[in-house]
């Protein structure tokens, strides 16, 4: 069963594009990654799902029901963590969490303390005394408190230190094992790779690709930088699997997907000054997806 089904969803802010014809679905029980650079439309899609904004055209359903029409009913089973968290400044953490809980039926209030212990959060502090990371923790707890069936996370790890990120990922995995479906939006490929089964890649408001993480890792791109002593023969690297080949004076850059040994073979007997193999940035992978589109 599909928990989320998005169909040709389009949102324009006046003439300004938000998203265009976004279509994908999230199955029950999966952790679905949603990646793209800043401003690609991740938040716009999520905000439409939560009926914070009204789509220009297209539709989206959650648990089979239209997300605008049945918004308030559906939101009972959704836990949402916004990318930037803001709460009523003069309230204490515990007060905010209790206020949040008061909107749902049958909330287990002991979970507040349990979750606060896991995330190492002081419940007696005032919101305006909290750091960015600690506010994020409040967000995580209020999003998970009512044990939602669908968890929507919009860039959740910003501000969290690595240890807390780990605790947070564990929390998400636990909720997922209990049956919750997760939509995880991020611009950091590595954290999505850690957690998600499938990903949708969005750029400039449109979905570029929907892929299995395992398949993606299979075509694992490497970024090569070669600095030559003498003159470079570019034709030497006229190989299948090489993209984004650029030449600056005596430095050669390219992305490569495939058996690395084939590159090593080509390097035999070459006089190199420097040799770098790196993980490509998300941007570079996106560039690649773009070229494929053309």
């Amino acid at each position, binding site marked *: 069963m599909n928990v989320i089904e998005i169909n040709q969803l389009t949102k324009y*802010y006046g003439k300004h594009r938000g998203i265009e014809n976004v279509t994908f679905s999230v199955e029950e029980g999966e952790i679905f990654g949603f990646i793209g650079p800043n401003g690609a439309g991740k*938040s*716009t899609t999520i*905000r439409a799902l*939560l009926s*914070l*904004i*009204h789509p220009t055209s297209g539709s989206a359903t959650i648990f089979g029901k239209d997300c605008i029409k049945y*918004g*308030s*009913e*559906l*939101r*009972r089973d*959704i836990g*949402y963590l*916004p*990318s*930037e*968290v*803001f*709460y*009523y*400044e*003069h309230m204490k953490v515990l007060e905010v969490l209790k*206020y*949040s809980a*008061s*909107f*749902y039926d049958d909330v287990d209030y002991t979970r507040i303390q349990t979750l606060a212990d896991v995330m190492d959060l002081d419940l007696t502090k005032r919101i305006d005394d909290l750091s960015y990371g600690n506010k994020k923790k409040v967000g995580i707890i*209020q999003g998970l408190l009512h044990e939602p069936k669908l968890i929507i996370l919009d860039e959740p790890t910003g501000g969290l230190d690595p240890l807390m990120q780990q605790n947070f990922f564990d929390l998400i995995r636990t909720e997922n094992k209990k049956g919750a479906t997760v939509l995880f939006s991020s611009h950091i490929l590595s954290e999505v790779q850690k957690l998600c089964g499938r990903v949708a890649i969005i750029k400039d408001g449109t979905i570029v690709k929907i892929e299995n993480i395992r398949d993606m890792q299979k075509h694992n791109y490497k970024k090569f930088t070669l600095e030559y002593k003498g003159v470079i023969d570019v034709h030497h690297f006229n190989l299948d699997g090489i993209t984004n080949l650029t030449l600056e004076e005596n430095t050669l850059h390219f992305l490569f997907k495939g058996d690395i040994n084939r590159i090593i073979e080509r390097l035999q007997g070459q006089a190199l000054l420097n040799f770098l193999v790196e993980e490509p940035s998300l941007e570079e992978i996106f560039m690649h997806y773009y070229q494929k589109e053309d």
Partner: protein
Amino acid sequence: MNILKQELRMGKKALIIWCLSLAGILVLFMLIYPSISSQLEDFQKVFKSFPIEFQRALGIADLQLNTILSYYQFPFTYILLAGAVQAMNMGVAVISSEVREKTGDFLFVKPVTRNRIISMKILAVLVQILITNAFVFVAALITVTILSAEPYNVKLFVLITSSLLFIQIFFASLGLFVSAFLRRIRTVLPISMGVVFIFYIIFLLNETLKDEKLGLISPFGYFDLSELSKTMNYDSLYLLLWFVLVGLFIFLTFRLFARKDLPSI
């Protein structure tokens, strides 16, 4: 009910300050009455020597200063003005603060409809207006009763004092409509001060012009205190207009907010 409770808790401090200052100013002004009541006849003579347009602009053309209630109108005009600012502040801020303080992403993803959130917020404003009015009413009643040497017209006192409630409800609903209409409101006070004073200036201007159509524009004219003491009742046409406008503003607030996009942070 949790939203209502939350709103009242957040507005508590401002409400206490407003109640104390409104009642305080009124009481302070009234305390001057005994010391000048013997000279009021002379004051009136001086006023009557002013040109008639000037008298009208000051709202003293029909003034009879021989009773405590005719004096009471004076400070109460300023209470109306300040009360209008307070009510409009609440009206503009109550919903727009969720956008300004960026807490909308918290409240509007809760399992409640937008209409319910707005109803609860309007209710919270209404409760705060009622508390303000009750407080001012009691403070005024005690002060006037103590200071008045002879019995005074209770009906007129109630009419004058209750006009605050009508004025506040009007400006609160206008504020709600403004907040629904504008995309993003950065600061509240300049908007409410501006709007209230423009309406007050229109009212003052019309006191000299006495133009009927212009009179329809300003709510301060609907509850003209110097008219009240002559007719001993609210003007039914103005009351109807007040009712229609308040209803329209509230309706449009619901209507506009139902379709509104919450700007992302």
